[in-house]
Each structure stands twice: as structure tokens, then as C-alpha cells.
């Protein structure tokens, strides 16, 4: 049963990392201009 405890904690940590990444991307304004992001990828070359 120890393995269960270990796996639970690991899976929660991984999921929490995903959540943190999303909150970070939100705070840095990456969802503010979705149209622009879709077009920008065609031009960013420098």
C-alpha cells in the first residue's frame, strides 16, 4: 500500500505543476491576444 501513497503524491505533484504552468501563462498575458498569436507564428523569424 505504500506504493499507492507514493503514486498518489507523485500524480498530484505532476498535476499541480500543470496547474501552476497554466496560472503562470495566464499571469504573463498569453491569453490576451489569441488572434495575434495565431498570426504571429507565421512571421516570427528573428
Amino acid at each position, binding site marked *: 500500500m505504500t506504493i499507492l501513497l507514493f503514486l498518489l503524491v507523485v500524480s498530484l505533484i505532476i498535476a499541480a505543476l500543470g496547474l501552476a504552468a497554466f*496560472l503562470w501563462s495566464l499571469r504573463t498575458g498569453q491569453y490576451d*491576444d489569441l*488572434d495575434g498569436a*495565431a498570426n*504571429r507564428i507565421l512571421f516570427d523569424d528573428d
Partner: protein
Amino acid sequence: MAGLGPAMTATLDLPLPPTAPAETACAHCGLPTPAGKRFCCPGCEAAFGIIQGLGLGRYYQQRLLDIGARALRPEPAERWDLARHVAARPDGGFELTLAVDGLQCGACVWLIESVLAKQPDILAGRVNMTTRRLHLAWRGVAADADRLVAGIEALGYRLVPFDMTALNAAQDRKGRMLLRCLAVAGFAATNVMLMSIAIWAGESGIIGPATVALLHWVSALIAMPAVAYAGRPFFGSAFAALRQGRTNMDVPISIGVLLVTGMSLVQTIQRGADTYFDSAVTLLFFLLIGRVLDHRARGRARATAEQLLTLRMTDVAVVQADGTVRRVAQEQVAEGDRILVASGERIGVDGVVETGATSLDASLVTGESLPVAAEPGTAVFAGSLNLGATVTVRATATGGSTLLAECVRLIEAAETRRGRFVVLADRVARRYAPTVHVCALSTFLWWFFVAGVPIGQALLTATSVLIITCPCALALAVPAVQVIATGRLFHGGILLKSPTALERLADVDTVVFDKTGTLTEPLLALAECRDAEALAEAAAMAGCSRHPLARSLVSAAGRVAPASDVTEHPGQGLSRMTDAGESRLGSRAFCGGSERAAAGPELWLSRPGRAPMRFGFDERLRTDAVQTVDRLRAMGLKLALLSGDRPAQVERIAAALGIADWRAGCSPVDKVALIEAMGANGGKVLMVGDGLNDSPALAAASVSASPSTAADVSQTVADLVFQGAKLGPVALALNTARRSRSVMRQNLVLSIGYNVLMVPLAVCGWVSPWLAAAAMSSSSLLVMANSLRLHGRTDA
């Protein structure tokens, strides 16, 4: 997205002028050029040179010109008092936000940012394509703003300083808060569901009670903080409603979620078998999806509406004591200031003409379609268009006596008289919440007192009733439809500004139109022209002027290359030297026109060796006005026309459209009174109007619409704003609203039907956690799928 602003692509039943020989497109802006030339004007040639010089020539290969957007031709820019809008940054730099007009596609974003990146001292120059705003930050001095902005304007874009209002920032914060809540709820929902599936699987006996207890505890540790965090938008709104003695949909949601979480915690502590943490967080997750989409759709419509108003903002030329002219913002003009209004410019403030005589197009202000004469002593109102010579206006009091102040007062009065509209979801919630809570309470009482089960067991059964009835599908029923309908309307050029407008539109049984600028086109149209060749020649000259009559002439002539050697004589007209002598286009006196010709707005063309020729102008119906009015009539709506114009003009338009119920010469007060009378008889009125004089009527009607060419006040008051040169969006909006309402009702029936089916099971105590989760998700998905049906049909 199609471009902002009305596309002036009017056609006229006139013989088409012979097209200019070998028409070519300008290498920079794509407009037609004189034969044999690469550029249409020196401005474009310079812009092309700048872009090539910076090594950004790739722009021309990669762009996609948007026909609906403003062409990229550099125009003499208004000089803004930019310093007023520049803000200091904590790091010692400065920043400025501007609305950008003329963005064609992603290449324009790349071009603007690349040009800015090559400037010295630039910290940030970033275009937001969604909101069409440019954010600039730089080191150095505040006055550098002029240099940076001028550099972009030279490429042909138009930049207008944009003030971030407090409202705007609050909207932004709320959107982010909802997204954060959504993320937390999503995280909790997936992880708790993982535990739950293990627990449900364990019911067959493969895991022991100690493991189940552990999984329950982990679920509780994830779910409880998540509910506390992600539930805030609902708790806040429910609390506010309860404090005012009302209920809304958030009340049963909040009570349900809190009770379910609390009950599950008690179960976990007592090592009971059933917890409902998964239901609580999944419910929040579903509901938040609806909220986020709803917020996005409305925020986008509002941002576009703001953009439209910002781009129309102009500043005012104030004559200083020493005779020089300084351009300042409208609100900085003081009483008694002398203001210079050039030909073709809109008057920025209310005032009295001091010097000069001209004719004014006051259609946006009074609804009068034909120009009125103004001479020293005439009172003029902000929003009137100067059609004639340059005049000086002395600004009068901006206080209680002006027309604008009078309209604002009438708007406020009309809005307080108009009852608060209760949206469908809230009307349902008012009955739903008490029913559900009584049902859960009686379940508890019956099980505890009659059936005699232990209190914990009775509480659990009562809680399962609350879970099953938790209005997940019900709460999605309306927003899901609203999101899709708002998106559809947005693509049709309609900006829905009020969240309740869709439902109010669906109830409409009477449509009241204003005439000038609403049924008719905002610009006067060419009505008299006897010679197509002369029209082409006149249009080539007129292409160089921003005068409203010149612009009408150009739009009537179709695609004609503007002549390059035209001189403008302010207040008189245009002249051009040809091989045979001088051609002139302008006022009767300037061109030597005959005195016997008809009255009304006109332009004259004089050519060497030929008699001067008159172009007469008159108002004209929007191209699809007749079809739209017929369609509205076919939808069973009563139609009426209320205008401030003189009877002869109104009767002509009413007859052309077959509207029997018309009134002419209405003052703003008359319009409000007539609309309120219709409302008092139980009618639900949609008012469509554009003028300042219509704004109180817009506020008095149960729902209102304005074209995007309308006066600022009218656009602010109106519930929806439609773009483009057509009237069709009004019918599209009504049609979409009616269909949305029927889908909303289906959704409500679906979700209430599901409750009616499931509640008896819950009351009997037969509902297990997995059944609750499955039923809740499936009913929510069913409602979503039903709402998506709105997408498919394009018969509007």
C-alpha cells in the same frame, strides 16, 4: 474579421463611367492608380520607400489585403495632443496605448512591430490583434511619442490615443479571475474523479475500507480548497442577491455546492461509504466554462464598440490669443474659446458661429436630412458636419442648456422609468430555488421522522436530492445559447453590448425607425448627374478631398483613380490644370454655375470650353432598406417611422418603404412620449436610431440599436451597434434572438425534465455518487449539444 467601419461600396443606377485605361493597383495600398504609375499618391510612394529602406519588403509578399478594412493610404493625420495620454513607467520610461485603424492581417502586426523594433530607445511596441491596440513603451522623453506615432502613421495606419478606463480594467480583472477559477476547478475535477473511479471500482470489494478512507481523505483535501477558491464567483453573486432579498441562479448553485461538500466531509470523517466531492467540483468546472465563454464573447463585442468610438474621436482646433491654432481634446475646450472648423470637419463642441458663413449637415444632431445654412449668430451643435467654408465658432456653456445636456437628462429620465428587465434564467431561478429546497427538506423530514432512519442517513438522502437538482444543466441552458448567438451576431457585424439584449429582442413586436442616417445612408448620395464622362472626371478630382460631398461623388463613380495634380481651395473647391486649361470642381460661385438651378446640396464641375455642370445630392435609402423592412413585416412586426425631419422628406421615404405609421418633425421629447405610449399599451419596442436627437428614445424603448455611424451618445445608449452600410443586421439580430429564445426554452425543458426524472430516485435514496456524476454530466452535455444547433443554420 471583416474590417471596422462602414464599407462605402454603394452602387447607383447611373450609366457606369468608362473605366480609366489600364487600371493598375497601387504597390502600397492596393487602390487604383493613374495609368502607368506604380503608386496612387506621393504618400504611398514614401511609405513604400520607408518599408523597403528598412529591409521589410517581405511585407508586400506576405500580406493579405482585407477589402473591408481601411486602405493603407497615408492621409494627412490629425495632430493629437499625445503628451496628455502618455503615462510614466516605474522604470523611468514612458508608455502609451493607441487604437490602430487599417490593420489588414497578421503581416501588418509584424510590420508595425518590426518598424518599431528598429527605433532607438524603444522598450516595447506590441500590437494586440484581438483588440486592435498598440502598446508602446520607450526610454527618453515623453515627447518621443510624436516621433514614434508619426513613423507608423507614415505607413498608412491611423493611430488614436486610447484611454484605458477604469471599467475596462475591472472587466479584464474579472476575466482573469474566472480563468483562474476555471483552471483550479479543472485541476480538482480531474484529480478527484481519478480517486472516485478507484472508489467506485472498489465497490466490488477489491480494495479494503482503509484504502477507501484514504482516497476519500485525499479527495477532500483537493476538493475543499478548490471549492473555496473556484466557487467565489457564484458565492459572491448569490450573497449579493440574497442581501437584496432576491434569488438568482447562483443561490441554488452555492447552497448545493456548499452543502454537498460539507456533507461529504462529514461522511469522510465518519468513514461513511459515499462522498460527492467529484460532483461538487465537476459542477463548478462545467458552470465556469459557461461563465468564461460568456465573458469572452461579451468582452470582445464591448472592446470593438469602444474601438469604433475611439477611432471617431477628433480633437478641436482652438484659436489662441496670439492668433495661432492649437489642437486640444474636446473636453479641454473652455467656454468662450474660439474654434476653427474647416470644411469637411465635424464641429467638436456646441457654440455660436462668430465669423464666416457655411452650410451644415446636422443630420446626426437633429435628424434633418438637408443641409442648413449657418451665419454669424447661428447656434451650432457638436456633431454637425461643415459642408461649406471654414468658420470660427465660439464655444458656449457646456452646462445645462446645451442640446447634449438636454438629451442626457432625457436619457436618464427615460432609463429610470423603464423597468428593470429580469432575464429568463432568473425568472426560472425564482421558482426553482424554493421548490428544490423544500423538496430536499421534506425528504429529510420524511426519512428522519416517518421512516425513522438515523439522522446521518436522512441527511445524506436529502443531500443527494440537492446534488441531483443542482442546476448544472439549468445554469448552462441560457449562457451556452447566449455565447453562440453573440458570436454569430459578431460575425454579422452586430455588437451586442448588453447581456440581456438578446432576450429583450426576442420579445419585440414593434420596430420604430429613425429616418435620417438609419433608413437612409449616412452620407448624401448623388441624385442628379447627366453625363457619365463628366462624373468620372469629377470623381478623379474629388478623390483628393475629404469633403463629404466629394466622397459621395467618388463612391457613386465606382473605382476611379484619383488625379495627382489637384489643388484644394478651402471653402471653395478643387482645381486642376489640364492641357486645355483649368478644370474646377466646387461651389456654384467657384465654378460659375447657373443661378437658375434647383436648390439643395450640389457640386459644380467646370471644364475649359464647356458649360458648367451640376451634380445634385439628396438622401438615399440604404441599399437593402426595402428588403429588410419587408422581411421585418413578414416576421409579423409592426413598423413605425419617427423623424425630426420635415414632412415632405419623411413621407417620401415612408411611402417608398410602405410604412403607414409615420410622424415628422418630432422633437426628442415627442419621440420618447410616443415610444413610451407604445410601451404602456403592452408593446415591446425596438428603436433603431442614430442621431443625438434619437438617444432619449433609444433609452426609452425596451431594446435599441444604432448603426456604427451614429452619434457617440446614441451608440453608448444603444443595446446593440451594427456595422456596415446595410440595414440587414437589424433583421438578422431579431431573427437570431427569436431562434435563441426557442433554443433556450428547449434547454430549460430538457434540464427540468431531467430533474423531474431523477428527483424521485433521489428522494427514495436510490442515487449513488457515480449515478449522480453520470447524470449531471450527461444532462450538461445534452444542453450544450442542443445549443450548438444554433451554429448550423444560416437562413438568416
